[in-house]
């Protein structure tokens, strides 16, 4: 790789280079383009610069500099977020935390680990797996997303039905506040530190309250036994009913995932096909784990429920290899859309589980209305839907149509008492849709909290909250 001498007249770039070193700053257009968006590609903006601090003190110094010079800034991890939380809307200085990727300590006896924010999610599980432990939150991007990013987005995953999302596994945070001051919350990962629950507040704040530089997480003992069931249904309604029945039967599956026909078409056309039939309306991927002695009983009950709901075929994974194959097929589902469509827009609505058939029908109607295919991949057990609106951005007007269709899907979720996002975050993408579920007062209540931390609003501005005084209808016009 070429060594580049710092060649710029911009005093801010020079000052930032002083802090992090010349090899740890990008500021030329060719280098910045790669940072103009994250996993959400509809909006693109070039950052002013990208810096790569190596430790907390450098993060604090960069933040302090930006704060003093009124430069907008934001933090970025692997940039896999799906709502645009890491897009430099205002030409921010991007603080990339990927070089802060150490696993600082592991304490198995007390079931915790301390990591830097750039540490990759799956690597944590890999680091403790030989002793039979794991880190529970498993977003589909866990192969490459960072735990810092997971904290910012309060990332979920397929297994949060039983084990909860990121916030349920965070014990402590070291945070650089937007003025450059460093604080530590939940020192030593001790539960319930006296005071308001800032851990809970910061987790999922989408990088608008502070920059996390060290994270204490809970690690769990791997379950003794694990069984995975794959069930094919001719009718999507039967699959939905099966989900409800399983939950009502008092079973708490570790994961309960659903894919519809279009989604199945995509995963089968992509890199990790399983050989699902192409003429079923839905499949369920159900995983139960726990004490080995009780597992067979639960599996029998699940199989029984599937059969009473007219399942076409249902099978239990015979070995880890088969299980891994099913999961790889499911976990790469979003990316797989590339195989059947040039572009896709993923939505992230949540509904009460019992409303599943009703909402799926509405999504079908939205699809017909806009003449765009919508694939559905979702965490059915949580009621967390991922409608994937398929479109071609090269066709004039289709991007706008896709955005409108996606927004309508969220409206359908909100209308049954649901939420506009279960795990992807609001970011840029859904900030106007916040009005579907919150009143102006409720949004102000939240921005008031932001103002306590982020007084100048230099940190990741323009995300998460709707533009004041602008209503959703205007956006649609």
């Amino acid at each position, binding site marked *: 790789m070429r060594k580049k001498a710092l060649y710029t007249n911009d005093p801010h770039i020079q000052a930032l280079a002083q802090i992090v070193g010349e090899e740890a700053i990008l500021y030329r257009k060719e280098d910045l383009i790669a940072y103009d968006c994250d996993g959400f590609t509809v909006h693109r903006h070039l950052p002013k610069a990208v810096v790569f601090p190596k430790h907390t003190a450098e993060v604090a110094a960069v933040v302090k500099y930006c704060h003093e010079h009124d430069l907008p800034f934001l933090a970025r991890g692997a940039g896999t977020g799906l709502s645009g939380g890491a897009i430099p809307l205002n030409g921010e200085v991007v603080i990339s935390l990927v070089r802060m990727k150490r696993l600082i300590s592991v304490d198995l006896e007390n079931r915790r680990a301390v990591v830097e924010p750039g540490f990759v999610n799956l690597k944590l599980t890999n680091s403790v797996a030989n002793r*039979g432990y794991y880190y529970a939150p498993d977003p589909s991007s866990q192969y490459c997303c960072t735990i810092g990013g997971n904290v910012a987005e309060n990332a979920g995953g397929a297994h949060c039905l039983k084990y909860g*999302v990121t916030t349920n596994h965070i014990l402590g945070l070291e945070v650089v506040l937007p003025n450059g001051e460093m604080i530590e919350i939940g020192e030593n990962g001790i*539960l319930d530190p006296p005071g308001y*629950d800032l851990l809970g507040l910061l987790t999922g704040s989408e990088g608008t309250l502070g920059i996390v530089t060290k994270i204490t997480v809970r690690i769990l003992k791997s379950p003794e036994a694990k069984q995975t069931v794959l069930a094919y249904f001719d009718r999507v309604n039967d699959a939905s009913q099966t989900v409800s029945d399983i939950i009502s039967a008092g079973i708490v599956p570790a994961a309960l995932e659903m894919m519809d026909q279009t989604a199945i078409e995509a995963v089968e056309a992509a890199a990790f096909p399983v050989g699902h039939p192409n003429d079923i309306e839905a499949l369920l991927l159900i995983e139960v784990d726990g004490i080995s*002695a009780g597992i067979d009983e639960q599996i029998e009950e699940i199989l029984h429920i599937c059969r009473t709901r007219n399942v076409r075929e249902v099978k239990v994974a015979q070995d880890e290899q088969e299980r891994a194959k099913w999961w790889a097929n499911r976990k790469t589902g979003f990316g797989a859309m590339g195989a059947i469509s040039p572009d896709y827009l993923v939505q992230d609505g949540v509904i009460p589980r*019992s409303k599943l058939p009703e909402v799926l029908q509405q999504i079908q109607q939205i699809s017909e209305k806009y003449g765009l295919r919508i694939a559905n991949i979702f965490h059915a057990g949580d*009621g967390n839907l991922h409608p994937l609106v398929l479109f071609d951005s090269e066709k004039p007007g289709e991007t706008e149509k896709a955005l409108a269709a996606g927004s309508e899907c969220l409206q359908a979720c909100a209308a049954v008492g649901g939420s506009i996002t279960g795990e992807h975050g609001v970011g840029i993408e859904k900030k106007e849709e916040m009005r579907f579920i919150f009143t102006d007062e409720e949004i102000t209540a939240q921005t008031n*909290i932001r103002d306590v931390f982020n007084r100048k609003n230099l940190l990741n501005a323009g995300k998460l909250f709707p533009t004041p005084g602008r209503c959703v209808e205007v956006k649609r016009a």
Partner: protein
Amino acid sequence: MHTAQVVEELNALFPHMHKEEQEAHPLGNGGAVALFPQTEDEIRNVVTYAREKKKKLAIIGGGTKRGFGGLVERTDLLLSLANYRGIVEHAVADMVITVKAGTNFQQLQDYLAEYRQKIALDPFLPLSATIGGVIAANDSGPKRLGYGAARDSVIGLRLIYPDGTVIRTGGKVVKNVAGYDMNKLFIGSMGTLGILSEVTVKLRPLPKYESLVLLAFPTGDTDTIRSFAVQFLDSMMEPVCLELLNPSLAEQLTGKRVYTLVIGFEDVKSAVHYQEAFVQRMQPPHTTMTILPPQEAQKFWQTFYEISPNGAMPPTDRAVEAAVKIGVVNLDVISVLRESELLQAFNVDIRAHGGLGHGLCRVYIKGAAESVVSSIEQLQAIAKQRKGYAVVTHLPLSFRQTIDVWGGKPSYFFLLEGIKAKIDPQRMFNDQRFVGGI
């Protein structure tokens, strides 16, 4: 303004609302006049009245935590939510329930049991506590290991802000990242930011079977306890609690004055028995093991949850009672319990328990006033030495005014102050009830 005048004003404004004039209470946190609204509108109207008249409000549910925090004996008004109760919505298939904050906790669990469901929280004094109080004080018991705390169960709240607006946080769905996770801000905020109106929690199925394994360590050798705990926690067993009782608490609950580990299993029957057998196989020498089947286990818990001093009960004798919650790194619980034994030198009764899987201990102290205060100070020192904290969760007002029951302020106190100032600039709600005098 005299109390009589206030009552007159209130009668004019809220003719149908129940009101009571209040005497001073040894635990403090009272008000000159207690109000018992029955609807959310009534609560809002009281708040509006208070704001306009620049009056302060103390908020109370079942009153079990009246001795927890607070430096004021009697403020202007005591807003009781005891008559604001009931189920707003129970989506049985979705396993989600929304209830009014004043709903009694045990009654709620009994209702849910008919549906084979439960709230996965095990707070103390469930017979008297309200769901709102449990959440505002972030109370949790030994089963936190298996089920988590309020922050893991609460999915939505409805609150009345000091400016009279109704604010909803979260929602009715089990997974939600829309906006800040504002629920967290109010859980454990001791009513200093808003009045809880409705609480939405996700439910869990009632376990199909349960049992308790009591493992008694007569030698009192804490190293043996530790190595057993380490080995057991490293196994793939899934206990819902792994709570260590100090000898005097064990005597009260099991009749044997020895360190006792309470290991709870809740699962299908075969899995519970399998785990009991597992414990049996790894049982250390010189220990005794007793298995309590479901009914006895439930009876054990009923007694257990009532061991904590109850702020809603009149004091029974002259002895001063205190309760302290200590947070340390999980296995340090053993040391905290061992060291708290030494406090008996102050001639106080010490009962203590702590979870080896979650690091939270509770120490109950009973004795002469001075000795209780010294014991608390000792406990704060013990916690500090282990980089943890000790918060006094029950103590008569007069002593709270001399000891910092919160054990000091965190380094980021300015943020807590900032949040309070944004939401409640007039310090209308539960003034001085929380950390650092918030």
